[in-house]
């Protein structure tokens, strides 16, 4: 009896492994393979076509002497911090708002989630018009009589990156709201009753009890937002094209420019590897902490 069971289990796991082979190969070839290939190209002198020579770290040296690249790293850091923080805060507040049993909840949810369903390539153009000082908010305010009104961030060297934050927060906070809302709905009604009996103010319940319980939703939202930050590209292209000048340059756009427009896949590959290394450097400690917690059973 036991032997038969063990045998059966074994055959099942062999079959499962066989079924997983295509997936494993895909991961190895399509993901790991391209990564290794990119790493190989990044130490060659490749231009339009991949070259098989070896030039050491010279592409990396050129990369870190490139002002535009350094600026794009700085921009993505500023952008990432503001974008993630704003999305989490606004998304949480929206979820709390909807959770108050408001009227037309379904309609409001759709409205808040709607921006996320749209491609930024399309909406970015509209944001560009809204923020354009000759067409958008500034012009409207001036026509309304506020002749000194000024809102020209999108054409301002120092402020352009913040306009991207505004527009992408508009797009992504609905997603955070949806995640948080499902978390809120999972909280036991009894908890609210108990808090009400104890006379604890609502906001205090949200901050001290509900928010910590939303941990999984928050971390899911964080991971999704973090991925959006690393690959931020379409919003920049649609709104500012990295401008004015190079003021709102981001790494993904830098890589695409050098890959295609400037026919320099060597430098583009070096930039991709640096980006990958940066992400790993941020993610690895988080992953480490989580596995340790899991081991301890926290």
């Amino acid at each position, binding site marked *: 009896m036991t032997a038969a069971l063990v045998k059966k289990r074994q055959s099942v796991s062999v079959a499962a492994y066989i079924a997983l082979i295509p997936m494993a190969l895909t991961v190895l070839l399509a993901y790991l393979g391209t990564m290794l290939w990119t790493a190989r*190209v990044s130490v060659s002198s490749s231009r339009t076509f*991949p070259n098989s020579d070896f030039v050491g770290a010279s592409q990396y040296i050129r990369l870190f002497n490139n002002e535009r690249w350094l600026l794009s790293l700085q921009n993505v850091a500023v952008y990432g911090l503001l974008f993630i923080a704003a999305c989490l805060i606004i998304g949480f507040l929206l979820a709390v708002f909807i959770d108050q049993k408001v009227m037309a909840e379904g309609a409001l949810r759709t409205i808040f989630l709607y921006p996320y369903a749209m491609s930024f390539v399309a909406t970015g153009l509209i944001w560009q018009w809204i923020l354009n000082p000759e067409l958008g908010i500034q012009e409207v305010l001036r026509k309304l009589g506020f002749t000194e009104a000024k809102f020209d961030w999108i054409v301002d*060297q120092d402020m352009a990156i913040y306009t991207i934050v505004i527009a992408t927060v508009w797009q992504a906070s609905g997603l955070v709201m949806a995640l948080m809302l499902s978390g809120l709905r999972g909280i036991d009604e009894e908890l609210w009753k108990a808090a009400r009996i104890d006379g604890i103010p609502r906001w205090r319940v949200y901050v001290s009890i509900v928010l910590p319980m939303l941990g999984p939703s928050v971390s899911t939202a964080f991971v999704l937002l973090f991925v959006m930050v690393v690959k931020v*590209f379409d919003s920049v292209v649609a709104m500012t094209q990295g401008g004015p000048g*190079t003021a709102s340059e981001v790494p993904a756009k830098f890589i695409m420019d050098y890959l*295609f427009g400037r*026919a320099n896949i060597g430098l583009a590959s070096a930039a991709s590897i640096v980006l990958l290394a940066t992400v790993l450097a941020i993610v690895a400690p988080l992953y480490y902490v989580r596995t340790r917690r899991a081991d301890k059973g926290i």
Partner: protein
Amino acid sequence: MKKAIKMAGATALALAGCGAFAQGAPAAAPAAAPLKATVIHWWTSGGESQAVKQFADAYNKAGGQWVDQAVAGAEQSRATTINRIVGGNAPTAAQFNTSRQFRDFVEQGLLNNVDDVAIAGKWDQVMPASILDAIKINGHFYAAPVDIHMPAWFFYSKAAYKKAGITAEPQTWDEFLAQLAKLKAAGLVPLAFGGQVWQEKITFDAIFAMVGGADLYLKVYRDRDQKAVMSPAFRQVLVDFKKLKAFVDAGSPGRNWNDATAMVVSGKAGVQIMGDWAKGEFSSARQVAGKDFGCFPGFGPKAPYIVAGDAFVFPKTSNAAAIKAQKLLATVVTSPAAQVAFNSRKGAIPIRGDVDESTLDICARQGLAIIRDKSRQLPNSEMLATPDTTGALQDVLTNYWNKNQSADDAQKAFARALKDE
């Protein structure tokens, strides 16, 4: 090496799948019908598709079968071509700019030459020298040029000029600046400007050619002469370029070129410095050159005429039918009749002088007349520098234009970008 390229191609295709440009080009049949020609190009706007249809018709009439493969966007189109070449499924012909964009292809031995066609068509005699320099590599012709674009035309609104009380086209740089000031005083946007890096670059090149002169231009772009870049004359070019900043509106950063042209079309702005493709915008608004808008290619009768344009390259193949198709295609697109039919719709000028010019507009006729004078031809900077260097120079100029950077710093950055190659 070839194997490496093939492998790389497969990976590049995989990458391309995630990229924004995945255009899903259907696989071409392996030349089943004789003289079938798959052509990749990026002529997708209204006027452009009209123009390329002229080539398709001419090629079909000559006994071929044109398979159109339009890919929107020049970079995307070139990326598609590169992927298909390295993936072993090359098109019969592909569009590139008449520049150094396809130099790497030639060095890797990935292109067929069209020497027979060039010799039979006497290309050496009918085409401008700068075009020949760009397509003739190591003594072989590796591309069939199809048009000449001059990226530095000045288009002005006659209504706006009238409103500002300007009666004549400017003959010098100073006169031009004075006219811009007049336009400003009349409450108009003097210069319709699109603040995108490539537009800043062509505006700069226009000023460079006009103010700095052809000699300095060639010393900097062709010879990479560091002394010339650091000279006071070049510094003056940078200073003059920045003077234009006082005449553009606040909404210019990021603006598309056609939106800037629309400002001239509507008479809201006075003048735009743009390539002759801008004429398409005027004609789709039913404006006529010489009547509603004016055009001049620089200041005075001796101004340099910057030469740029498009060309077809022919990826390497040993298939006899495909080679025949490539040669027929090269013959057809450079023939006088197809040249006129194509270019009168494209807004460019034909690559050969021996054509019937009656269907061209007055700007194009003016351009064709100028280009016959060899001393006025000046190659586009992209013919002289790699795409990488051009990009680095664009970065320098866009920083200088948009930031509060001094001309001295910009000059140093420019020199460094040229040296880096």
